């Protein structure tokens, strides 16, 4: 990890990795959408509405995955003062917020026809809404300081505290009675979902993950460049050149 803390090396690496992730995103997304819309069967209970799952579930997974990545990056930035880690955490937040928003909206659209309601305050839905607010709070706090280093430190602490919410989201459906059903895929006794529906779901999840990696490369690169520009401007202003 020390190795990639060097921004120059990171730039070199992501110059090649970025386009790779972009290509993988397009490929997996194309396959995933094709399988999800044309190849996978309708559900025995939910009929065609089950296809919302192929967007909703990967988006919800990514909402959690992005937060875990953000917490790890924020902790590394806080403890070891790696400059790239702070930037990675900052770059992840809006992506995670977007995935969380997507999960909430698609869940709502799915809930109306199936459950008979757009929204209920059960433990799963409420804890995911809290996750969305955590992302927004992180973004706001990160940009609330004139000095980016202080913003990174304050928001890293918020991210770490918010990590308490992650196990609550994951296990809310097991710990308490909720309207939301328990996990279908990530569970001890194997997936409770037919392989013909599991494969498109995993393809879409792969596409979403590659998309995140691609956007992360782009965002961190632009952050590094922005920092260089800032440093140059500072030097010019002080006449150090």
């Amino acid at each position: 990890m020390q190795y990639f803390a060097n921004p120059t090396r990171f730039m070199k690496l992501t110059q090649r990795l970025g386009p790779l992730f972009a290509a993988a995103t397009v490929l997996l997304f194309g396959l995933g959408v094709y399988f999800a819309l044309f190849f996978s069967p309708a559900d025995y209970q939910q009929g065609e509405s089950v296809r919302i799952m192929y967007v909703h579930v990967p988006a919800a997974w990514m909402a959690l995955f992005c937060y875990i990545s953000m917490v790890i990056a924020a902790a590394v930035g806080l403890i070891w003062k790696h400059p790239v880690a702070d930037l990675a955490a900052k770059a992840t937040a809006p992506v995670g917020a977007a995935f969380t928003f997507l999960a909430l909206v698609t869940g709502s659209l799915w809930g109306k026809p199936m459950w008979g309601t757009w929204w209920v305050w059960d433990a799963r839905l409420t804890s995911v809404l809290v996750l969305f607010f955590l992302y927004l709070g992180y973004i706001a706090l990160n940009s609330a300081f004139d000095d980016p280093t202080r913003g990174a430190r304050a928001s890293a602490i918020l991210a770490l505290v918010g990590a308490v919410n992650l196990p609550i989201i994951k296990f809310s459906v097991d710990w308490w009675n909720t309207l939301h059903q328990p996990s279908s895929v990530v569970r001890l006794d194997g997936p409770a979902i037919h392989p013909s529906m599991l494969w498109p779901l995993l393809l879409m999840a792969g596409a979403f993950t590659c998309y995140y990696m691609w956007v992360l490369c782009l965002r961190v690169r632009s952050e590094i460049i922005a920092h260089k520009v800032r440093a140059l401007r500072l030097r010019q202003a002080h006449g150090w050149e």
Partner: protein
Amino acid sequence: MKRKHRRFVFVATGLAILFVAAALILSAMKESLVFFHSPTELAEKPELADKRLRIGGLVETGSVERGADAEVRFRVTDLENAVPVRFKGLLPDLFREGQGVVVEGHLQDGVFMADEVLAKHDENYMPPEVADALKKSGKWEHMKKTFERSGEQSGEQSQDSKY
């Protein structure tokens, strides 16, 4: 100890304390975080009956009666106890006998007057043909697990597959 080691220990202990605190708070709030109660809980705790509440269970097979003016009567069961429910209004598409349901309302003379009926489906997804095949081979478990009270009193009822 170097400064980064000190920071690491600080962050790690801080997080550990935070997680323990959250676990304590959540276990203390266990009762109020549930979205619905089971018919058995309602039978065991009469103090629940005074408030507005939600009851979750399966729509008992053969219990649905449709009255005049879009009124529906059915029984919600957790396979141990059942509560008669009366509801007037639009039912969700997934509402059917043997299906999971959460009703919101209040208890009046032993009858639950619901003003909202939500369908609760389980975590199993499969094509219709597979569902039919499972039903034929008698391996059909459906939602029973969800509403059975955490396996403590699962008697012979869990064996029969009526639907």
